[in-house]
């Protein structure tokens, strides 16, 4: 259990604009702790200097939170709004006036009149060497950059911004999990930067604690207890670890590895079709096939970047060969036979009208579906009521 009152997830005002219901002051106050959000909602803001500009800040905010409302961009690898700041990747170090050392922008809490500098020769030098160190500890492609596995590699993008030093590889002895036969989640230690976003997500958000940082120093890696397959752990296969991984060390086993290299896919925003939470999904489509499902960015929609095993992975059914692909009419032999749409629609209309004509409209029962769309439910009840004049229309409202 993290300490009550520490920074948890704080969304920036501009990110949640579209949610139009949580004002930024309440958000800013999140870090002070639940109680005070309500009892002291009008905390006074103050100003700080960010790269020489005067900007507004709220008590308890970090440099990141303040900067998020401005044009100032601070790079980072280990930060995720949903997680407590770790300050581990060291990418986000900034200069704080009066502090001898560089400080992590993700975790440094601002106070009135503080002066923060995010770009300087010192920071530039720091980033250059740091990124080069990461490259010395990471699988590189022919261009000498951290390789892209199809899940996006934020480290690769950062490394493009600095001059390569050509540091000799350190060949850290990190263990993989070769025997893990789970069908969804693949871990490649050669691409892992030990930012611990996956393990922290597994602990702080999904809260199942299936994976952990293990060993130490050069041998530090991500493991399960006993290096068992994720299937045999408390893992619920939510895939949030893949989603939060910045380098592609965690990838989906079932999505095409080359998704990104193929120039990206068309993503269609939709709503999950399983439980009643209403998570938003991005369906990635290739050749008229759903090949991957991801969540919108944290802070954008109500699922806050999160999905469960069903929402993220259980989409094989869409293109399953068992799908019914043609209308069927039961023949005199008692079996279902393919038919044209016209035949099937006529048969349906005749069957329903015959019962209505013989037994009255209330001998018909219409079962609509809580799995179908609102429009379809509207049309189903309209069919029952307007076309057949019966209110015998329901769906599994209770389940």
């Amino acid at each position, binding site marked *: 259990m993290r300490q009550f009152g520490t920074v948890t997830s704080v969304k920036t005002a501009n990110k949640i604009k579209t949610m139009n*219901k949580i004002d930024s002051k309440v958000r800013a106050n999140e870090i002070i702790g639940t109680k005070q959000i309500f009892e002291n909602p009008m905390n006074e803001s103050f100003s700080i200097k960010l790269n020489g500009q005067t900007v507004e800040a709220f008590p308890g905010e970090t440099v990141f939170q303040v900067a998020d409302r401005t044009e100032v961009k601070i790079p980072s690898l280990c930060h995720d709004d949903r997680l407590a700041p770790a300050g581990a990747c060291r990418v986000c170090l900034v200069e704080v006036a009066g502090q001898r050392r560089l400080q992590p922008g993700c975790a440094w809490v601002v106070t009135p009149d503080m002066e923060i500098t995010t770009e300087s020769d010192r920071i530039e030098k720091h980033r250059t060497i740091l990124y080069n160190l990461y490259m010395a500890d990471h699988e590189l492609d022919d261009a000498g950059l951290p390789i892209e596995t199809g899940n996006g590699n934020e480290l690769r993008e950062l490394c493009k911004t600095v001059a390569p030093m050509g540091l000799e590889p350190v060949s850290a002895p990190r263990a993989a999990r070769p025997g893990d036969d*789970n*069908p*969804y989640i693949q871990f490649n230690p050669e691409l892992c930067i030990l930012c611990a976003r996956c393990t922290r997500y597994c602990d702080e958000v999904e809260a199942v604690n299936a994976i952990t940082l293990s060993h130490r120093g050069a041998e530090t890696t991500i493991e399960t207890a006993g290096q068992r397959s994720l299937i045999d752990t408390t893992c619920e296969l939510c895939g949030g670890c893949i989603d939060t991984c910045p380098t592609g060390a965690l990838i989906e086993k079932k999505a095409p590895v080359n998704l990104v290299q193929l120039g990206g896919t068309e993503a269609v925003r939709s709503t999950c079709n399983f439980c009643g939470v209403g998570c938003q999904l991005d369906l990635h489509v290739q050749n008229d096939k759903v090949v991957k499902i991801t969540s919108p960015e944290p802070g954008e929609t109500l699922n806050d970047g999160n999905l469960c095993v069903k929402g993220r992975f259980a989409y094989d059914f869409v293109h399953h060969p068992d799908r019914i692909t043609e209308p069927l009419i039961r023949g005199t032999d008692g079996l279902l036979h393919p038919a044209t749409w016209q035949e099937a629609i006529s048969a349906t209309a005749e069957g*329903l009208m015959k*019962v209505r004509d013989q*037994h009255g409209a209330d001998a018909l029962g219409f079962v609509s579906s809580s799995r179908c*769309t609102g429009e379809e439910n509207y049309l189903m009840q309209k069919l029952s009521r307007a076309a057949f004049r019966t209110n015998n229309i329901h769906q599994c409202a*209770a389940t």
Partner: protein
Amino acid sequence: MFGAGAMTNAIDEIRDSEMMFVIGSNTTEAHPIIAMEMKRARQRGAKLIVADPRKIWLAEMADVHMQLKPGTDVWLLSALANVIISEGLHDQAFVDKHTKGFDAISAKVKDYTPEEAEKITGVPAEDIRTVARMYATTKHAGIYYTLGITEHTHGTDNVYCLANLVLMTGHLGVRSAGMNPLRGQNNVQGANDAGATPIYYPGYQKVTDNAAREKFESAWGVPLSPNDGLNLNVMMKEMAKGKIKAMYVMGEDIVISEPNVSQVEAGLNQCEFVVCQEIFHNETTRFADVVLPGACFAEKDGVFTNSDRRVQRVRKAVDPPGQARPDWEILCDIARACGYPMPNYSDAGEVFAEYASLTPKIAGISYLRLEQNVAGLQWPCPTPDHPGTPTLHLDGPMIGKAEFQAVDYRPSAELPDNDYPLILSTGRTLYHYNSATQTRRDPGPVAKQRGNFIEISKRDAKIYGLQHGDRVKVSSRRGEVVAEAWISPRVRFGCIWMPMHFAESRANLLTNDAGDSVTGTGEYKVCAVAIEKVTTGTAEELELAGI
């Protein structure tokens, strides 16, 4: 009770809770992403109270777990009210301003003392006091419930009891509080909103209300029936009696999901005509005269409305397979073939526009606005400039004064006896969904849960001579199934639990179709069963049982 059958508060308010009272909801499995918000609140110091016969995941994280006996919810909740009122912890100002019937409820719960409740429910009286005090004195305290509350013959009574607690403590119209039923399916809320119910037109306008009927008659251009229709539970019984003679079933496997399914099967056999509109063959399509291939969510446009009344877009990403078509198009064709002049909608958006124009709660929502509001719009949203309503009842109950509902405890319809000595509850797991036609076609859920199982306590397992993984026959007065026995610390002595997902081993062959007097919802959570270790069985039989 206060005016709307939906979550009073928004899902993303949960993270700011000071207290969450979760009852009859296995949230981490049935609503994983809402559970994540609960975990987040818990991490930040919110208190978590869980009332559930099973030691579910959330119960392990809870400050108090009230492990009540199945079906004794009215006792437990009335005892909480007893403590709140007898200790003077209720919100008198709220009660005076916004409610009526407080004296009656005070009198009613007088006899429901924590000590007596302990005897009936098995929950220690001290825990009941602790929770009552905590709930009454915490401002941002929300109640979250699901089918563990409603799937009883006294489901409505359970809901009344919860509403009484909300009203007497003034937890209404407050952020991160309220009364929050978590809907089980992607669009239960939307299906109800759209009028797929026997007593309401779209937007909860009563079919028996003349003005409402006239409005829809005028819009649809035909006379409409003035009588309430049959709810699903009654419809199934009438079908078995031969009164319902034709069924049009769209996107539901009633032979798996309805209680006492052998009765449902008998009814379908008697029907003169059955049409199924589906994406996969399932248990129900076995009875169909016509099968119409529909489209899944990735293949069509529309909206889903989630648990917190949020209308969100579904967008077509790929084409339906083969000749399959979006369901809304099929429905229009059928209506026209039946002689009703359904308009020529050019797309789903036009259907929505007609639906919204007749439904004041969503009249302000349009496809255009849903493009602009990526997080959706929450009803009520009556006008195009209305921002939507995350939290209901901010100015007091919508219906004016809300009335307390005094109810008496009634035992479940079927209690254990010598022949059927165990209580069976059924439910969902994380890995599968409803009849599992979708999830059993994906490797992860299958790897985690291959076939049907029961959870049984160590003590019961010992009595029946069961080892973890043994096969058991579970039987009730209505049927029997074979499943694997999982010895689990989650269930109480004398109780077993079974998921509902497996077609070859259907939990609903066992469940009781006795329905709630108001909603008709079946008693999925309590029925009496017997179990027996299965020692023989051919390979085929085992395969059939999914073991």
